[in-house]
C-alpha cells in the first residue's frame, strides 16, 4: 500500500497538472492567470466582486440567489446549499462557518490544487456565506499533512486583512468577518464534518450517531454552516453572473503516466471527459470513482454521468472525485485491497465494523492474493 502511494506521488512530480483546459470554468476561471495567490491580481481579474455584489443585497436576497442557482454541496452528499444557508440564517446566537480545505484521500490532489491556484475564491465564498447567515467567524480546517497549504492560506488571509477585505468594515461596509486556519492533529481528522467539528471543539475525533444537524448544533453546539472548499469556491460566481453547476475531477491513468485535474459541468459523461482530455478508452479493464471510498466499475459504465445522485447510487463517492483508470497490467484485487488498507488505517476507530471489519477484509484479500486464504471465511 505504501509503495503504490509512493508511485502516485512520484508521478505528480513528473507531470504537469492539466488544470487549465476546463470546458466551463467556474471554480477554475482565474487559475493560471495569477502568479500564485496574489491579491492584486485576484482583484484585477474581478475578484471580490461577488462579495461586493452580495454586500449590496439583503442577506435574505443573497440566500435566495444561492437557492435559485441550484448549488449543491460538492463534498459528496449534494445537499442543497440554499437550504443549509437559510436554516443557519434562521438560528439565533453565535454562528460559525467551517470548511475543510483538505481531501479525505491521499491520492486526491483536487483541493491542494485549488489552494495553490486560487485560494481566494473559496475564502470569498466563505465571506459571502458569513454575510448571508450573519456569522462573523470562519474556520478553515486542514489535514495534519498540509503544512505548506497552511502557510499559503495564512499569507492570503494576511494580505486580505492588510487590504481591509477581512476584519472590520469589510469593503467599507458594516460587515465584519474573520477567518482562522486550524490544522488537524492526526490522519483521521479530515473530510468528515462531525470529526472536524468535534476536533475543533477539543473532543475526540470520532463520528457520532444520531446527532443534530450542524446548522442547529454544530461547533460548540452553536449553529454552524459546514461546506467543502469546492462548494464555497463556487459561491462568488453565483453572485457575479449566470452560474453553472460544475465539479472538479481528477483523472488518473497510471499506465499512461497521466494525472490531471479538470473542471467539468455536472451531467457530463465520464467517457466523453476521458476522450476530451486525450485519455484513450481503449484497453480499460475497469475504472474506479471515489478513490478508497468509492467503487470499481466495468468499462461498460463509462457512459455514467458525473452527477450527485447517479454516482452515489452507483456506489461511487461523488465528493472524492478521483477517476482512476485501470488497464491490463493492474490487478483489481490489489486495487480493492489497497482501498481497504487505507480504510482500515484511516478509520476514525469508533465502531467495530469500520475498524476491525475493514481490517479483516484487508487481511482476507491479502490471503487471497497470496493464495493462502481459508474457504471458511467466505461462509457467512
Amino acid at each position, binding site marked *: 500500500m505504501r509503495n503504490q502511494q509512493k508511485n502516485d506521488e512520484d508521478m505528480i512530480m513528473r507531470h504537469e497538472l492539466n488544470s487549465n483546459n476546463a470546458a466551463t470554468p467556474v471554480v477554475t476561471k482565474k487559475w493560471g492567470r495569477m502568479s500564485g495567490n496574489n491579491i492584486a491580481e485576484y482583484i484585477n481579474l474581478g475578484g471580490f466582486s461577488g462579495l461586493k455584489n452580495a454586500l449590496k443585497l439583503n442577506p435574505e436576497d443573497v440566500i435566495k440567489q444561492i437557492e435559485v442557482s441550484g448549488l449543491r454541496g460538492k463534498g459528496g452528499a449534494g445537499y442543497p446549499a440554499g437550504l443549509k444557508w437559510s436554516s443557519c440564517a434562521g438560528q439565533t446566537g453565535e454562528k460559525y462557518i467551517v470548511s475543510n480545505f483538505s481531501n479525505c484521500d491521499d491520492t486526491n490532489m483536487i483541493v491542494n490544487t485549488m489552494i495553490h491556484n486560487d485560494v481566494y475564491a473559496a475564502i470569498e465564498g466563505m465571506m459571502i456565506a458569513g454575510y448571508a447567515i450573519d456569522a462573523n467567524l470562519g474556520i478553515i480546517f486542514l489535514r495534519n499533512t498540509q503544512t505548506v497549504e497552511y502557510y499559503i492560506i495564512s499569507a492570503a488571509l494576511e494580505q486580505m486583512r492588510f487590504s481591509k477585505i477581512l476584519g472590520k468594515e469589510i469593503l467599507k461596509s458594516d460587515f465584519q468577518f474573520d477567518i482562522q486556519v486550524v490544522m488537524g492533529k492526526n490522519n483521521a481528522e479530515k473530510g468528515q464534518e462531525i470529526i472536524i467539528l468535534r476536533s475543533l471543539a477539543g473532543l475526540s475525533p470520532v463520528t457520532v450517531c444520531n446527532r443534530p444537524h450542524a446548522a442547529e448544533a454544530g461547533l460548540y453546539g452553536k449553529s454552524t454552516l459546514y461546506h467543502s472548499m469546492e462548494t464555497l469556491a463556487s459561491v462568488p460566481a453565483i453572485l457575479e453572473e449566470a452560474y453553472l453547476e460544475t465539479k472538479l475531477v481528477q483523472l488518473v491513468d497510471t499506465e499512461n503516466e497521466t494525472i490531471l485535474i479538470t473542471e467539468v459541468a455536472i451531467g457530463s459523461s465520464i467517457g466523453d471527459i476521458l476522450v476530451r482530455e486525450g485519455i484513450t478508452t481503449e484497453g480499460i479493464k475497469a475504472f474506479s470513482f471515489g478513490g478508497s471510498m468509492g467503487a470499481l466499475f466495468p468499462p461498460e459504465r463509462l457512459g455514467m454521468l458525473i452527477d450527485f445522485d447517479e454516482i452515489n447510487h452507483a456506489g461511487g463517492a461523488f465528493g472524492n472525485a478521483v477517476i482512476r483508470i485501470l488497464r491490463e497490467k493492474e490487478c483489481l484485487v490489489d486495487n480493492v485491497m489497497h482501498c481497504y488498507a487505507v480504510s482500515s488505517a484511516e478509520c476514525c476507530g469508533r*465502531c467495530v465494523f469500520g475498524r476491525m471489519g475493514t481490517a*479483516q477484509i484487508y487481511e482476507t484479500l491479502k490471503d487471497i492474493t497470496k493464495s493462502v486464504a481459508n474457504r471458511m471465511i467466505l461462509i457467512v
Partner: protein
Amino acid sequence: MNEFISLKIDNKSVRCKKGSSILEAALMAGIYIPHLCHHPNLPHHEACKLCVVEMQEQGTIVASCSTKAEAGMELVTNSPAVQKIRNLSIELIFSEHPADCTACPKYLKCELQSVAQFMGLRGGRLKTVGKNISSDMRNPLFVRDMNRCIQCGRCVRACEQVRGVKVLDYCHTEVGSSIGIPGNKLMGEAGCRFCGACVEVCPTGSLRDKEGIINDTVPYEQALVPCQQKCPAHIDIPRYIRKLAKGEMEDAVAVICEKVPFPETLGLICNHACEDVCRRGLVNQPVSICSLKRYAANYDSGSWKKRRIVKPQTKKRVAVIGAGPAGLTAAYYLVKQGHQVVIFERKDLAGGMLQFGIPKYRLSEDIVQREIRDILDIGIEIKYETNITNPKRLLTEGFDAVIAATGAQCGSALQIPGYRSEGVLTAIDILEATARKADIKTGERVFIIGGGNVAFDCARTLRRRGCERIDLACLENRECMQASAEEVAEALEEGIRVHPCKTFIRIVTDGKHVTGVETANVDSFSFDENNKLQMKIAAGENHIYECDTVIFAVGQKSETFDDLCGFTVGKANTLVTEANSCQLLGSDAIFAAGDITTGTKFVISAIAAGRAAAMEVDQFLGGQGDIDELLLDRDEQEHFIGRIAGFDKLERASEELLPVSERISGFKQTTKAYPDKTATAEAVRCLQCDLRRDLERVKFWNSYDAEPAEE
C-alpha cells in the same frame, strides 16, 4: 416530565419513560440485549453494534442504545438478521482480543467475557489480528493493558465528557487507530487527575487498578474511597475536602460533624490513618487530610447544629462512666437518640486523655473544653469527682444501661530490677501533673524508656518544663519506631537524644535512688507464637546511661473496677466484650467502649468506639441504632472536574512549625493552621476517589434473567 410510553419488545409489553432509548427500556424491563459500548453514565456511542434490534414493521435494524423508544414500536431483539450482525460484531471484537481469559486479572469480573458467554461465542473463523502491546505499568494507581482494549470508547467518553479532563483519546497512526494518550505520555504528564473513571467504566481488563490498590477484604464501594474506609469513624473525607477546595468552610465542618463531635481536636491530634492509605500518596504525597480538618474547624460557627436532630424522649436512662472521648461520644449520640444520659467522671474535669494525657502544645485546653462544652450542651448531665466502683449497681439506681468508658489511665512499667526505686515515674504521671500545672519532681538528667508517641509527648513536655538533658531509648530501630515520623523529627530538633535498638537490663541505683539505666544493644527482635518477645542481643558491652530520673512510657493499663461484678478481664486489665459487640461478657445491660476494651489506642478509635456503643445501646433500649445523620445535603456531585495544570506535581503543604526556641519556651501550639490560600491549594490536590462511586456498575446478563416479567 415523567411521561410514560408503551412499546413491545419480543412480544412483551414494556413501559418506559419518554425519551429513554430502546436499550434502556429493554434492560429496565428485564430483557437483556447484549451491549458493550453503552454505559448508563455515558453518552451513547454506537461502537459495538451488539445492541442491534429489528423494528418489526419496517424491517430495519437499528442500534438500540442510540435509538429512542417510541410509543407503539414493535421490536425483536434476536431475529436471524439481528443475530447475524451481532455475531459478526463479537467475532470481530474477539479477532483482536487476547484469548487467554484465565490469565487476565479481570477474569470473571469482565463484561466482555460475560457478553461472549451469553452469545455462546465460537471463535476461529476470522484471522486473529494481534496487537502485541505490552502493558503500561509506568503510571501510579493504574495499569493500561491496551492489548486487551476493544475500543468501545467508554474510557474516552468518561474522561472527556463526564470528567472534562481529556487525557484519553483516540490516537491515529499510520497503521490505524487505538485508544491511548496522545504522544504516549505518562498519564500525569498528560494532565490526568487520577479519578479512576476510565478504570471504572472499562468493560475489559485493559484499564485496571494496580494490584493491591483496591482492598478486596471490604465491600467494593468502600474500598473505592480508602481514606473514608480506613477512618475508624468513616468521616466522609472527600466530601469535606471538596467543600474546602470550593472555599465553603462551614459546610466542610458540617460534613465532619456528621460523624464526630470533636472536629478541631481531631484536626490537631488525630493519627490520620486516612493519610497512610490516601491514593494521592501513590501519585506524589498524600493529601494533608488532618491539617485540613483543623483548618476547617477554625471556621466552625456551629451553624450545622440547626440541622442536628434530637429525637423525642424515650424515658430511658443511660449511665456513662468516664468523660473521655469514647464516653462523651457515646453520650452525645445517645442523647440525640432521645435517651437521658448521665456521665460519671472521677476527675474534676472532663476530657480524659484529651485533657490530661495530650500535652498542651499539641492540643490546648481551651479547644478541648470548648468542644466538650459543645457536646454537653446537647443535654448531657455530668457528675464530676464521682468514682464508680460497681457499675452493676447503677442498674439498680434507675439506669437502663451502663457504658464503661474509663480508658487506660495507669502507666505501666517494665519489671526490670530497680523499677520501684525512687526517681522512677511513668509518662502518665508527668503528663497529668503538667496538665494540672502541678509540681512533679524530676531531676536534671531524665531517661525515658519507650518509643511511642506518649514517650515523645513526655520528653517534649519535660523539655518545655526546663529539663535540659533528656535521653529516650526504645527497642525498635529508627524506621520502625511507633511514634510518628514528624514527632521524632520535631523532638530531635528540640534537643531530645534518641537511642533506638536498646533493651533495658536494669535500673542502676545507689540503693535508694536512681543513678542510671543499663542497656544492651539489640540486633533484632520478634514476637513468637505466644506473643512473647524474642530478642537477639548484639555482641558488645552493656552501656549505662547516667540519669537521676527514669520515666516509663511503655503503655498504659486500665484500672479495674473495685467490684469486678463478674466481668472477664483480659490483657492489660481490659474488659472482654462479646464478639463484635460492645456488650461485656456475661452482663446484660453493661457495655464498654474505648481503651478499656482495646488497650491504648488513638482518639479517633475511641470516638468510633463511642459511636458503636451508642448504636448498640440504642438498639438495646429499643431504638433502631441508626445514629448517622446528614448535616449537609449531598449536592448533585460535580463530576465535571476539568483539567488543572500540573495536577500530578502539586506538592503537599505542611503546616508552619514554630522555631525551636519558641517551641520549647512554653506550651504554645507547635504548628500554625494553614492560611486560606494554602488550604485551598491543598484541598485541590484531592483525587476525589468518591466520584467513582457514583458511576453505575454494569449488570451482567445473568442478573437480568432473575427479574420477574412485567405484566
